[in-house]
Each structure stands twice: as structure tokens, then as C-alpha cells.
């Protein structure tokens, strides 16, 4: 077993994809595609993998080819980023509605414009309501681990999974990770046996028929219903993964929340920075805690209600805006979940758009602000933009 190696986030995910050894991978090898599929194609060129690698002519075709392969019964992967995800969006919805267990890494970058290639979550949020399961990782290790678990989750629930990781901050930074051995991954995933196969001539199945007023609604209802069992499956797969990796995963990762008054909650790489800020600020007597949300779709509302029940004030970090005047997408979900707990104070911090850095001291300032607000009668400014010049 490999103990510890230094890899970028892209290399970590490419390694996971190599160990998954999918039947098919389709990708469009140009910007905004990432290094992930380039590294993967090298494994094939070097004769290390027997994956059918399809270089298509657009991201729309990348997802189309992946959908076709998955419908045929193949274990199929792809990867994308930012505008590439936007371009494939039509087929992203088709993948989930056909209940195909596709796994796709999304290296989270800004959906331009003005033209920008750096980290924010606007791409993932554009796919928020597509019926995909969405996992977020905080570092290269969790991106790697999420990737492998995603294959199991997808195949159990017959749903596609989007494995999100922050562009550049995770994708290009080198970190020490502890990958599993090829054999362990192979054993963990097992052989994929699709329940329905498009190309099974002995038991033919129709995929993607016209589905009008009389049945479409029922199929959409199934898509919302299956999310209930996804919650259990995410935990089950995490439990099995812990046995082979000794690493703990759940819906979220909490940090010093038990005695905390003030919680910062968010997605992605910033939550590591938030942990450092929380530790620092505790030295000043502020009881700070962090929730790093791993599962964003479906949204673990029940769990959050439970662990936030006794918290006085919550700061919600959103690396995307909705331009609704109602704050970011995560903020809306948190408000929704905590609505019945009434009295709670919830402040939204929109930050980091287009790769704008957020520092430890900025996050410490948020804890200080929240500490002051927690006892104030009224919050004047519920939606704030952090790190933007006035």
C-alpha cells in the first residue's frame, strides 16, 4: 500500500479515476476542461488502462457519450469545469432523469463573464437542481476519497454523482495524500452490473421515450423520492470506506461545534481556512465552530436542524451569488432548514467570487462580527459581501 504521496488535486482525482478503471470515459480536451482528463489519457496511452477513451467535439457531446455508455451498461465517467458544465447542462439533466450512475468531477470555477477561470461555486450551483447528487471536497484527499465513494453511491442509487472540488486552490495545489492501493479500490467497487442495459438484445429496454403530461410528473416524483434513500446510502458507503481507508466521512464534517455559540458553515476549500480561524479566535474567548458541508444535494436538512438547534448565530459562507437580493444558494437552504427554529440569527457572507482569496484574518473578523451580533436585537445587514472593494 502506498503510504503518502504528494499530488495536486487534479493528479489525485486522475489517480482515483485510474483505480476506478471505468469502461468508458468521454471528454473534450480543451479549455475549460482540466488536467484531469489529460492525465487520464496518458494512463491509457501508456497502456496502463483498457478504458474506452472517447475524445468528443464538445462538452455537450462528452456528457452525451457518457449517457450513451452508461445506458449501455458501462461504468462511465467524465470530468468538466465551469463553462464546460454549462455547455453540457442539457444532457446533465438527461443523465439524472434516465437514472444513470455516471460520476463526474467538476473542478469548480467561475461561470464567466467577465472572463474568469478561477475558483467559485457558480458552476456547481447552476447544476444544483439537476437531480444529481453533489459532493464537495475540502482538499485533494477528500476529492480523491469522494471520487471513489461516488462510484458506489451512484451505482446503488442509479443516480449520477458530481464530485466537486475547488478550482486551482485544490486542483493545482500540491498536497500530501494517502491513496488506497489499486487492489483495495477494485475490491471496494466490485464489478458493475447494470440492472437495465440498452444493448441487451435478449431483454430489450427503451431508454428516453417521450414522456408527456400523463407520466412525466410521476418520473420527476421518483427523482425526488430517491433522494431520501441517498441519505442513507451516503452514510453506508462512508462506513464501508472507513474500513478500508480509516478515514471518516459523513454528510458534513464538524469542528469544535459541541460547545460552540457561533458556527460558520460552507463548502469546499475555505472550510479548512475556517478551522484555523476558529482555533485562533477561541483563544480570544469566542466559542467558534465550523461545519464543512460535504453533501449539498440532497441537502442534509434533518442533520443540520439537529446540530444547529442550540446555536445562537450562524454565518453562511457562499462562494456564489444568486442575484436575487436574497443571498447565496447555501444561505437559502440554511434558512429553509432552520425556519421552524424561529429565533435564530443567520448571516450570509458571499465571498471569493472569481477566485478572490479569503484569508484567515478575514474569517476571524467574521467570527468577531457574529459574536457581537449574537446578542444584538436586530441584524441590519443580513447579506454581506466579503473581500470586495466598495
Amino acid at each position: 500500500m502506498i503510504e503518502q504521496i504528494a499530488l495536486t488535486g487534479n493528479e489525485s482525482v486522475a489517480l482515483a479515476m485510474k483505480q476506478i478503471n471505468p469502461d468508458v470515459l468521454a471528454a473534450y480536451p480543451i479549455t475549460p476542461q482540466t488536467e484531469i482528463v489529460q492525465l487520464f489519457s496518458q494512463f491509457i496511452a501508456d497502456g496502463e488502462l483498457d478504458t474506452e477513451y472517447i475524445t468528443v467535439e464538445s462538452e455537450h457531446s462528452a456528457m452525451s457519450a457518457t449517457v450513451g455508455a452508461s445506458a449501455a451498461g458501462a461504468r462511465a465517467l467524465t470530468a468538466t469545469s465551469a463553462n464546460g458544465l454549462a455547455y453540457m447542462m442539457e444532457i446533465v439533466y438527461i443523465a439524472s432523469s434516465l437514472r444513470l450512475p455516471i460520476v463526474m468531477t467538476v473542478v469548480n470555477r467561475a461561470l464567466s463573464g467577465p472572463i474568469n477561470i478561477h475558483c467559485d461555486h457558480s458552476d456547481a450551483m447552476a447544476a444544483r437542481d439537476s437531480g444529481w447528487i453533489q459532493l464537495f471536497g475540502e482538499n485533494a484527499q477528500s476529492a480523491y476519497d469522494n471520487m471513489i465513494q461516488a462510484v458506489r453511491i451512484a451505482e446503488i442509487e442509479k443516480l449520477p454523482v458530481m464530485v466537486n472540488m475547488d478550482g486551482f486552490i485544490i486542483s493545482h495545489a500540491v498536497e500530501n495524500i494517502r491513496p488506497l492501493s489499486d487492489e483495495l479500490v477494485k475490491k471496494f467497487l466490485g464489478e458493475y452490473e447494470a440492472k437495465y442495459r440498452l444493448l441487451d438484445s435478449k431483454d430489450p429496454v427503451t431508454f428516453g421515450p417521450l414522456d408527456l403530461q400523463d407520466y412525466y410528473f410521476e418520473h420527476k416524483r421518483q427523482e425526488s423520492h430517491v433522494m431520501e434513500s441517498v441519505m442513507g446510502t451516503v452514510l453506508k458507503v462512508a462506513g464501508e470506506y472507513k474500513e478500508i481507508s480509516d478515514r471518516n466521512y459523513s454528510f458534513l464534517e464538524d469542528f469544535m461545534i459541541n460547545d460552540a455559540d457561533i458556527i460558520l458553515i460552507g463548502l469546499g476549500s475555505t472550510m479548512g481556512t475556517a478551522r484555523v480561524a476558529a482555533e485562533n479566535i477561541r483563544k480570544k474567548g469566542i466559542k467558534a465552530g465550523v461545519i464543512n458541508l460535504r453533501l449539498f444535494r440532497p441537502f442534509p436538512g434533518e442533520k443540520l436542524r439537529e446540530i444547529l438547534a442550540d446555536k445562537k448565530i450562524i454565518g453562511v459562507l457562499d462562494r456564489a451569488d444568486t442575484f436575487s437580493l436574497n443571498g447565496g444558494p447555501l444561505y437559502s437552504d440554511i434558512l429553509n432548514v432552520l425556519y421552524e427554529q424561529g429565533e435564530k440569527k443567520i448571516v450570509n457572507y458571499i465571498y471569493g467570487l472569481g477566485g478572490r482569496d479569503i484569508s484567515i484574518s478575514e474569517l476571524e473578523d467574521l467570527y468577531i462580527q457574529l459574536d457581537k451580533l449574537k446578542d444584538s436585537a436586530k441584524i441590519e445587514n443580513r447579506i454581506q459581501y466579503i473581500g470586495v472593494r466598495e
Partner: protein
Amino acid sequence: MSNKEKKGWKELPIGGLILNSGNASDYKTGTWRVKKPVYIEERCIQCFLCWIYCPDMAINVENGEVKGVDYYHCKGCGICARQCPTTALEMINEDENYEKEG
């Protein structure tokens, strides 16, 4: 089929998949009609043009003879009536009752 007779989301196959092949005949397209063809046996010369032209195979044939229209599938397109050389098929409004001549 009324809405209540159709399967609910708990019973339907996932993903809009159709698991049985050759099931198009189960689908009732007769409700699409605005006008319907009426078969007038006395005028029919058994030329089978209606049977050839019907895009939905909705002309009933028994023992080698045209016997009328399959209203479960007939969409009321009117092609049969249009091509019939002896006006043995006539289009009437869906809600009209046809009374035979004479």
C-alpha cells in the same frame, strides 16, 4: 385510460424506462381523435387501400375481409376516408352518432 387507471410513481419503472418490448399497441391513441372514420360496409369493395394507407394499423381485418376501424388506436387522421374510392369510410365529428343511410 383515465388518470386513476394509470400507474403511480411508486409502481412505474424508474427513469421513464420501458421494460417490455412491443408495447406500442397498449397505448391508447384513440383519445386523440377530433373526427372519427365510420365504416359503411355496403359501399366497401374490399380493395384494402384503407388497410394499406392507415399509419396506425387501425383497420380491423377478419378472415381476409375489412371489418371496420379499431377505435382504441385510430387517431382520426382521415387518410382512410380520403383515399377510399367508394366512400365506404366517412369522417364525422367524434361526438356525433352516425346513422346509416337508407
